[in-house]
Structure formats: C-alpha cells, structure tokens
C-alpha cells in the first residue's frame, strides 16, 4: 500500500519542507491568521513566535489540516498534506489531552505506530521495541509501565515527544514543548532537537521564550495575525521585527538583550 505514495520516492533536496501561501483562517468571522506566507527549507529548526493570540497554534493546526482554512494553500515537501502525512509528526500541547485517561506511558508511545500497524492488527514485539527505543531517547524508559496520570508536566511532554519520534517522520511540528517543563525535560528536548537537526530532519516549534530563540533555533517566523517576518534567525530576529510583532510589550525584552550584548 505504501510504496506507491508520492513521498516514498526520494525527496528533492531543494523542495521546501513547508510552503504556506496566502493562508487565512477565521473562527466565526474573526480572522486569526490573515494572508500568511511561510516557507521552511528542509533541515532547519524553526521557531514560530508572536504574542498571545497571534495565531501561532492556529498556524500549526492549519498546516496540519486540523482547522478549516478560509483561503490559501499549504504544501508539504511540495505536495498537499494528505499525500505526505506519513512524513509528518505532531507533538500537541500537552494540555490538549486528558492525562487522567487510563493507560500507560508505553501505550501512548505505541499510538504513534497505530497507523503503520494498520486496521484490526495489534502492535507487536517490533513496535514495542521501537517505542522503548524512543522512550530511551527522551529519558523515560524507566517509566514505560507507569500510569500517565502519575507523570509530571515535563514527563508528559517527553512521552508526547517519544510518540512523535517513533513515527520516523521527516518533518516535526511541536506546539509549545518548553511550556512549563523542568530543567531535565528542557535539556532532553534540546538534545532531541539537535539530534533531529543532525539527521537533516525539519522541525517547526511554537515557542514562547524569546530569550532562547537564537540559542535553540536557526530559523524563525514572527507572526501577529499577519506574518511579520520569516527567515534565518540572524537576519530576521531583529528589534524592528520584534517591535512590529509585539508592539509596546517588547520594551522589557529588548532592554535585556541590549544589556546582554
């Protein structure tokens, strides 16, 4: 079934991992994203930043086909998403699910492999092994049998990360993975990001901490309903663009950056 899909032929190296053009998304009649263009080359770690309510999560969800698009187009490796879904992996905000759900850490990670296992069949030994490998990578192997209701916020985040890793995707979308996590988890996520970069994977991260953008990422998109800027961090992560995205709320951060320099 899989081999005749477009994405299994080797991808051209110069094709964009994500190409969003003229994207508009509205809830009821209020636009959340207005005429947004975003391009993400392959192999970059990109942060999406912007103030609260700027549409960061909506942009991610629109790219992933989770919210209806009012206008515009999204291409993944040059093709529409449905053809490329098997190359895409998503790490939702951890608050988006009920962690009181009766299941174990290993089970949640295995969910990343359900589609590959196919209808009716159950995940077997090979899938279990793969899930354990991913749990090792995020430092959660000892928690495999643990109830998900007993995890801390950071551990929940790492479980979601492991579920994404088992998918063997080429393009990752992560929604606020650093939100409210402990230092161990932050280190684990950074290690995973660097590992993915070294494997030439593309990662798009909704991020809220402006301080760490230059340290963690090499590409950045600034949005506030409209796109402010999109490009390499060194070129577009400028005071002018930040002011354009955040308005007056930026003063504090910019002062701090200047002191640091």
């Amino acid at each position, binding site marked *: 079934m899989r081999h005749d899909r477009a994405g299994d032929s080797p991808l051209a190296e110069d094709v964009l991992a994500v190409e969003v053009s003229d994207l508009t998304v509205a809830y009821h009649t209020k636009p959340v994203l207005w005429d947004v263009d975003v391009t993400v080359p392959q192999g970059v770690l990109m942060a999406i930043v912007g103030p609260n309510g700027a549409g960061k999560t909506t942009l991610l969800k629109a790219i*992933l086909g989770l919210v209806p698009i009012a206008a515009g187009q999204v291409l993944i490796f040059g093709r529409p998403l449905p053809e490329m879904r098997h190359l895409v992996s*998503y790490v939702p905000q951890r608050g988006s699910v009920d962690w009181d759900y*009766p*299941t174990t850490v290993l089970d*949640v990670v295995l*969910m990343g492999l*359900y589609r590959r296992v196919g209808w009716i069949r159950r995940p077997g030994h090979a899938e279990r092994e793969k899930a354990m490998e991913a749990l090792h990578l995020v430092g959660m192997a000892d928690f495999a049998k643990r109830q998900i*209701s007993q995890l801390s916020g950071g551990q929940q985040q790492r479980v979601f990360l492991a579920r994404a890793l088992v998918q063997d995707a080429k393009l990752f979308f992560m929604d606020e993975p650093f939100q409210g996590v402990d230092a161990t988890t932050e280190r684990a996520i950074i290690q995973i990001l660097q590992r993915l970069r070294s494997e030439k994977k593309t990662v798009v991260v909704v991020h809220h901490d402006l301080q760490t953008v230059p340290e963690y990422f090499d590409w950045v998109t600034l949005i506030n309903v409209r796109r402010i800027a999109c490009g390499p961090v060194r070129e577009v992560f400028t005071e002018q663009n930040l002011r354009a995205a955040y308005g007056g709320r930026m003063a504090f951060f910019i002062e701090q950056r200047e002191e640091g320099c």
Partner: protein
Amino acid sequence: MSGALENVGSIWDLLTSPILRTVALGSGLLGAVSGALGCFALLRRQSLVGDAVSHAALPGIALAFLLTGTKSSFGLVLGAALAGWVAMVFVLAIVRTTRLDENTALGIVLATFFGFGLVLLTFIQRLPNANQAGLDTYLFGQAATMLHEDVLLLGAGGALLLGLVVMFWKEFKLVSFDREFAATVGYPVQRIELLLTLLLVAAIVLGLRTVGVVLMSAMIVAPAAAARQWTHHTGMMVLLGAIFGCAAGVAGAVASSVVPHLPTGPTIVLVATSWAIVSLFVGAKRGILWQWLRLRMLQKRLAEEAILVGLYELAQVHGGERHGHTEGALRALSPNLLRVRRRLRELEQRELVEETSRGAWALTAKGQSQAQQIVEKAQEKR
C-alpha cells in the same frame, strides 16, 4: 420448619425456572454491552449523550407503533434507534449552527424528544385498540416479560457491537485519548467517532425494553464509572465495565424474581449504581477512601519530620543536644503543626525522641541522625 423448607424449595424452583433463566440471560447480556460501550462514552466525556439518546428513543417507539401497528420488539427497537439517531443529528446541527455548547444542545434535544414521546404515548393509550397496551412499559422497562426472541436479539446485537469494539480497538482508544493526533496520522477521525456514537446508540436501544428510556442512561454510566475506579488500563476498564454491567443485570433479575413486586429494570439500575458508589469509595486505584488514607499518612509523616527537624534546629541554636524543648517552642517554629503531643509520643515509641523532663523533649541519638538526614536531603534538593 417445614414451611421454611418449602420456602427455600420454592425459591430454588424460581431460580431454576426457564423464565428467570431467560430474563437473567437477557439482562446480563444487556448489562455487558452497555457497560463496555459506556466506558468509551465516559472516557470521551459523553455520558450525557446516553441520556439524550435513551430519552429521545421514546417518540421513535411510539411512532413505529402508530405507523406500522407492530408490537414486535424488533420493529419498535428499529424505531427507537432511528429516533435516537435523529436526535444526535439535531444535537450536532445545533452545536454547528448556533453558539450553544454541546451540553445545552443535548439538554434541549432530550427534553423535546421525551416530551413529544410522552404526548404520543398518551395519544396511543386513548386509541380504541386493545392492542396498544404494554407500550408504556418502555418508560421504565419490563424485563419480566422478556421472551426467547428478545434474548436472541440481545445476544446477536450484543455480539455484533462487542465484535466491532474488538475490531476497532486501537482506533477507538486513540480517538478517545487524542483525536487531533489521530487526525494528523491520517485516521478518518469523524467517521470513527460516528461509528463509536452509533454503537452507543445501538447499545442503549437494545436495553430500552428491559430497563426503559428513563433509566437506561444509568446502565451506560454506572458500570463504566465503577470500572474506572478499579483499573488504570483501558482494556481492563472496558472488560470490568462489561462484567459489572452483566453482574448488575443478572443480580437485578434474580432479586426481582425472588422478592415479589420488585420491578426488574429499576432493580438492575439500583444494583449498578450502588456498586458504582461503593467503587467510588473503595475502588483499588482511585477510591476516595484510599486517597484520604494516603493523604493522612503523608500529613503524619510530614508532621513527624517537622518535629524532628524542629528539635534538631532548636538544639543547634541553644541548649545543646540533651536540652529539652517544650511543645510550645515546636509550635512556634511551625505554627501549622497539629497534634504535636500525639506525634511526640509516637516518635518516643520509635525511640527517636525522649522526654528529658516533664513537658520537655529532645532528640535521641537515633532521632538526631534521622533529623540530620532529612535536613541534608532538603538542602540537596535546593
């Protein structure tokens, strides 16, 4: 003496009678199916859907009778299923086109359909037709008149529903836990949810004749809520839901046949809900009782540690190790401490503290080293 024996004998006759066997089997099947599917309704926070569907089934039953004149359970069940389905479509339409949320929409649809059903029922009862009697049993159910044919319908329907749950197990589990993720990996989430809701509607409709439209939602919620208290695994929860539902069905059927004038449907529901309440308190995994006990133990341990550390710090500040300190001094150090004297006596029994003079306490050598450990651990964490 012989009267008692006769009594036992007649109860035994009752228990082994084919009528009870039919009723118990049917009720058990119904309980198992609604218990299993109820788990998914509970996990998806859709318990109210069961309520709405079962109440909405009433006009379906009445209309099926009015339009076709049938009284066969199959024909009436079909009408109930259709009405339940139309009700769900209405709910979805209300949620999509208005700003009302799902709960409000469910409430509106439930009341409207049920009211309409009652009107139709009253109308039917006034019809000059002897044949209509018995339709009102669908209000509160009537298991006692269950026929072989009904049990077959329950058995076949239940097997089909449970078979589908086993077949789509992975998908149902994933969609119930994280529907957005399921969508991103390419599952037709809406169709899977639709199937799950359809199965729930079918389970409810199957139970209508036994338990009735008013109480059927309890058979969806109660076994599932009880099962949730005993396990942390989805599979085990669904299995337990089925077992609890089945047990409630059989127990209710037996009880109502042994005790005269005890209605079967409501008895089944009472058994199921009683078990849910018991499980809420003593359930192995989440029982309120255990949570309370754990909290008490933790509070006690923290209080003990606070006393040990308090005495340790007092000794360091003044007086040296052997100098006794009063309860008052300990309370001054940590004002939230409760039952200081009792805790001190307990610590004394474990030879961690000793009373140096009346009302004055100091750490023993053992208590000293334990307090030191606690302090060091706290510093490490910092």
